[in-house]
Structure formats: C-alpha cells, structure tokens
C-alpha cells in the first residue's frame, strides 16, 4: 500500500481532494511536512484493516467540507442510538465506511452494510459525545 493509494481511496470513497500529505508510520498520518525524527506527524488519518482502509473519526471531521460522497446525515435520536451500539436503517450506498453528520457537523466514522449503518466512533469518544449531547 502506498500513500498515493490512500489518497485515491479518500478521493474515491468520499470525493474528497486534499492538499496535505499522507505519511506511513504504522497507520497513515495526514500532515504537512513529515519527517522520521518526529514522534508524530500531523493526525492519524487512515488505518489499514483486514477489510480495507478505514478513516479515523478525527480525520473525517477535519475534511468535512470536502466530503461529497458516502455522507450520512442522522437525527439526534439516530445518533444517540448509534453511540449506544445500535444500528440504523439506511439504503442506497456501497458497502464501506461512511461519514456520519449531525446538524451539518461531521461526527466521525460509520460503517454501511446490508442496508444498516453502525458507528465506528471509538467507544470512549462516543460516550463523551453522548454526555455532551
């Protein structure tokens, strides 16, 4: 897997064209001027999972203005359900990761399969959001 493949995935899956760099260091990090000397370069953006590339919630929030495809807008009730581990019904997408939006704000990563959406927002962060809603 090359950084260019990651850029292509983001463009293909979310129609998002980005001007930053993708730098591999265990995961793919989105940054400006990566160098090995640093402990981290920018923010962790995309992970290489068994089932394919998975964008992080922080990364999707960051690129929210560029996302034109596989965006799923949810209501408060739907978001609360997702954050407690439930799935919500949805249709018309290709299987894979989606960007969850609430009140025109990207919340993070979700997964679409078999006409169902589930949350991929990390559990701890999800609990924090539930309390803040």
């Amino acid at each position, binding site marked *: 897997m090359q950084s260019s493949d990651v850029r292509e995935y983001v463009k293909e899956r979310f129609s998002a064209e980005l001007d930053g760099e993708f730098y591999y260091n265990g995961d793919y990090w989105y940054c400006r001027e990566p160098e090995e*000397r640093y*402990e981290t*370069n920018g923010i962790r953006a995309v992970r290489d999972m068994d089932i394919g590339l998975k964008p992080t919630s922080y990364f999707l929030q960051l690129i929210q203005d560029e996302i034109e495809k596989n965006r799923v807008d949810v209501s408060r009730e739907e978001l609360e359900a997702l954050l407690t581990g439930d799935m919500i019904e949805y249709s018309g997408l290709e299987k894979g990761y989606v960007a969850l939006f609430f009140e025109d704000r990207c919340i993070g990563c979700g997964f679409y399969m078999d006409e169902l959406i589930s949350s991929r927002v990390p559990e701890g962060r999800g609990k924090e959001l539930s309390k803040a809603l």
Partner: protein
Amino acid sequence: MNKYRGIIPNFEAFQEECQKEPISTVRRNDIKARKDFEEKLAEDFEIEKASWNDKVYRLKDEKKPGKSMLHWRGEYYVQEESASVPVTVLNPRPGDHVLDMCAAPGGKTTQIADRIDNKGLVVANEVSDQRMKSLHANIYRTGAYSVNALNEDGRMIPEDREFDKVLVDAPCSGEGNNCRREDEEMASEQESKGLADLQLELLEKAFNLVKDDGVVVYSTCTFSPFENEYVVSQALEGNDVKLESIDLDFQHERGLESYQDSEFGREMSKTVRIYPHHIESGGMYVAKFRC
C-alpha cells in the same frame, strides 16, 4: 502576594480579582468551527466576546466549558484569555515554520496551527512523556495537522533546522494562576531563581533555532521578576538579539526596569505584564525578541 505590593499598580484591584472565581474563556478554532459557531455556542452558554480578540469568548457563570458537542468536535479550545496573548504577539502567518518549545497541553500549539490555517509547519516539543498524551489528544481534536510532535528536552533540540518563529512558553512557578487558588503555595525566591537558569537556557536555545531576522517570543504565567525581566535582561546581555516593543489593545503594565537590588534596564519597558485585574484572567509576562 504581598511581596509584590510595590510592583503591582492598583494592588487592591489585583487582590480583589485574585479572590474571585475565574471566568471560563474559550478560543474559537477556525480549523474546525462551522459558520454558525457563535450561534451554536450561544445555545449552550451565555457568551461575551473579548474586546481585543474576536476569537476569544467569555462564558458567564460556566464551570464546565468542556462539556459540549462543539468542544468534543474541537471547534473551540478552553483557554484563559491571557494565555492567548503570547501567540498573538508571535503573529504566525500561513507558510511559517514555527517551533513551540514547551508545548503541552497544546493550547498555544493549536492556536498557532489555527493562525497559519494549517499552511506551514508547527513543531510542538514537549519534554514530559506524560504530558505528550494531552498534547497529542488536543492536536487530534482540533485537527491541527500541520503540527509535528517532538519529545525532547527543549535544550537538546538539534540545530540542523531553523524556524521563522519560536515560542518559549517557559516552565515557571505559575503565580499568575496560583494566586487564585487558596491551597497553592507561592514559589519562594530561591525556587524562582532556580527556574530562571532553565528558562534562560531554553531562551538561548531558541535564539540558535530561529532564522536570521526571525522572532522569538518568551512568556511565563508568573509575576516573579526573577523568571521574567531578569531572564530577558540576561538574554539581551549575552546574545546578539533585540527586544521589540509589544503593543496590546487592552490594559496592561510595562515590564519592570528594576526589582529589589537588581537593575534590568530601560529596555524592559518593551515587554508587558498582564495582571488578573486587567482582563479578569490569569497573570502573564511576554517579551518579543528580533534575532
């Protein structure tokens, strides 16, 4: 704090302010904030904008400014109003390469990334492994992807790279915040003098890391002249650098030209002291060097 009665004008107002509950303030992060940010913030809190900085909002009677979706999403950073002054003085611009030498928990680092609109490079250095965690968390939350994090003793940062601007928000005795906390003991003169050695070493390292004609801003959140004007005067004596006068759009005091038996020189009036009663916020000292 009585030891500073002689150097803090309007000492009664200072004392009165130190006894008040601090006002919660937040800084809008335009990397993540949506256009309706202010409207949404006003739904959660009673807000008032700072007069001198349109990104800073005071939240009236709010004890938990971090409990909101906007904060969770990184649309704002909880930061004392005075703590946003050093980066305002540093004035980073898109394209700049900036070093934040003592970066955790990341308030000023993420403020710099916002100011340069993630265009350029911010190197955020932190010596403490433990404090790196909070630095990372805040970089991710605020979307500050122009930030590369470094875990070094600031005095040991390799000098093979130069920066346009360097911020030395030095470790200090913290009197500017501790004065509001009844259980906190103030630093002794001896402790302050000990810290001054480290502060001067960090500042002199910053001079070696900045480009010719670059800017170094030195700041602390303490009142002790040993950690402020003394350090700055020593740095001026031993290095080919100049102080630039700082202008602020709110009430403040100029740096001290002398304290007890020590003479710091007239140049110190180019530096600034911010006391809690000036903007109902923590204390801060800021100096700006041209190198």
